[in-house]
């Protein structure tokens, strides 16, 4: 396990470095995407619905965008984790396939760290006490098992069908609008009920409560997201392990 983690980290670090290689803006590109979306939504919402925002709305919005972005990026790269490394997989016999999935997820984590730094900078700018950011790892850690399980599941299925890429592209767009990224939802509404089955809802809600309200979110929220994570890990890793030896022949 230590070997897998060590190599995953090394591959993620290299891939992260290579993505910035030859780019004038380098790591700024990780921030420009969410930042552009942030300003567009802020502008559109301000113009169309003035005075209807949640307290500290810019931070509320940015946490939603960066949280969702992390989820979307992790799954998108996981789908290709095995296919993209076909050369390695068929030529080296001492690398566990899990390494490639973990490396892609870790690379998303690296990008997310920069996004969180951006959130901290905006918290300072908008006068929200920045110390709340220290609590962020808690929401990240309870969400991570879900990312891990879903990542393994998608990596295995992605080898068998290229349709998964397209399905995920549409599904993630739908999920973006279903998740309260740029709007607020009240308990008792249909949208809230739908979101009770949405893991990203718990992630962004817990993050917002910790960072903006600086209070502890209801325990049941932790229970549900951890339960979803355990289920995702059980199914995802089990399927990946069952198909692992077959994957090298399919890529």
């Amino acid at each position, binding site marked *: 396990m230590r*070997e897998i983690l*060590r*190599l995953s980290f*090394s*591959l993620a670090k*290299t891939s992260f*470095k*290579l993505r910035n*290689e*030859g780019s004038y803006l380098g790591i700024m590109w990780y921030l420009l995407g969410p930042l552009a979306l942030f300003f567009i939504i802020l502008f559109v919402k301000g113009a169309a619905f003035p005075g209807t925002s949640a307290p500290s709305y810019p931070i509320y919005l940015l946490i939603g965008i960066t949280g969702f972005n992390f989820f979307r990026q992790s799954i998108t790269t996981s789908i290709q984790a095995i296919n993209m490394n076909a*050369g*390695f*997989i*068929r*030529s*080296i*016999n*001492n*690398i566990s396939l899990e390494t490639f999935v973990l490396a892609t997820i870790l690379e998303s984590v690296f990008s997310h760290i920069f996004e969180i730094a951006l959130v901290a900078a905006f918290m300072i700018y908008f006068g929200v006490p920045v110390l709340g950011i220290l609590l962020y790892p808690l929401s990240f850690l309870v969400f991570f098992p879900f990312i891990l399980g879903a990542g393994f599941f998608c990596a295995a299925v992605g080898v068998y069908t290229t349709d998964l890429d397209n399905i995920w592209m549409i599904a993630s767009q739908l999920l973006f609008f279903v998740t309260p990224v740029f709007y607020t939802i009240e308990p008792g509404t249909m949208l809230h009920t739908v979101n009770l089955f949405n893991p990203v809802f718990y992630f962004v809600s817990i993050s917002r409560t910790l960072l903006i309200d600086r209070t502890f979110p209801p325990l049941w929220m932790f229970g549900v997201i951890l339960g979803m994570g355990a289920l995702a890990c059980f199914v995802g890793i089990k399927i990946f392990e069952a198909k692992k*030896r*077959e994957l*090298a*022949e399919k890529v």
Partner: protein
Amino acid sequence: MAGLEVKNISKTFHIQARPTEGVLSHVISAIEGRGNTWELRVLNDISFSCKPGEVFGIIGSNGCGKSTLLRIIAGIYRQDKGIVHAPGRVVYLSGFNIGLQSKLTMRENIYLVGSIMGLRKREVHRYFDDIVRFSGLKDFLDTKIYQFSSGMVARLGFSSIISFVNHKKPDVVLLDEVLGAGGDAEFKREALAKMEEFMRSGAAVIMVSHDMKPIQKYCSRVILLRDGKIAAEGRPEEVIEEYEGTAA
């Protein structure tokens, strides 16, 4: 230590005849009774053994299952039937440019390849000077390798991989068309000498090659694969004669 033992290995691939077809085409094919996959039996009841210190050759025409057999022994592919008993560490080599990244410097690439080969940073560090010396590329340590010629890349790849494989002290070595290296004549000579030294290290070596010269020179026994079966087995000259006779 006991050597490598391969017993009754069989492998069938399920080939997708029309992998790019959509659902509708699959439905129509099913209605018409046409299958979308066909079975290709690549290996059929293959058995052989290789003692420690022995170099064993596998020859045969393209697609006869040589690489598949090595990948099964290496644990990359799964056999349908049979047993592979490979004691200790098994190293599969199918090239020397594995893991090299053109946008990284030579120094970074050495550490990356070491990491891929399962070495820790401090272990790579131990071999670093030897790799640089053997490659003869000391002046290019901090140059990104997309600026290297193909010969220089071959030098770097070979020097790195061979050092790291040596470090692992493998018990079974599987060479899939990788004898020697690229680069100029002098480096090729040095690389071949290094490979010979490596083959004499006491590991059981399985060599797959289309080039009959190394098979004849290094192997003590050879098998010829044809239609998924062992068509001939014995001393290199006999089996090569059988292969070249049928190929002609």
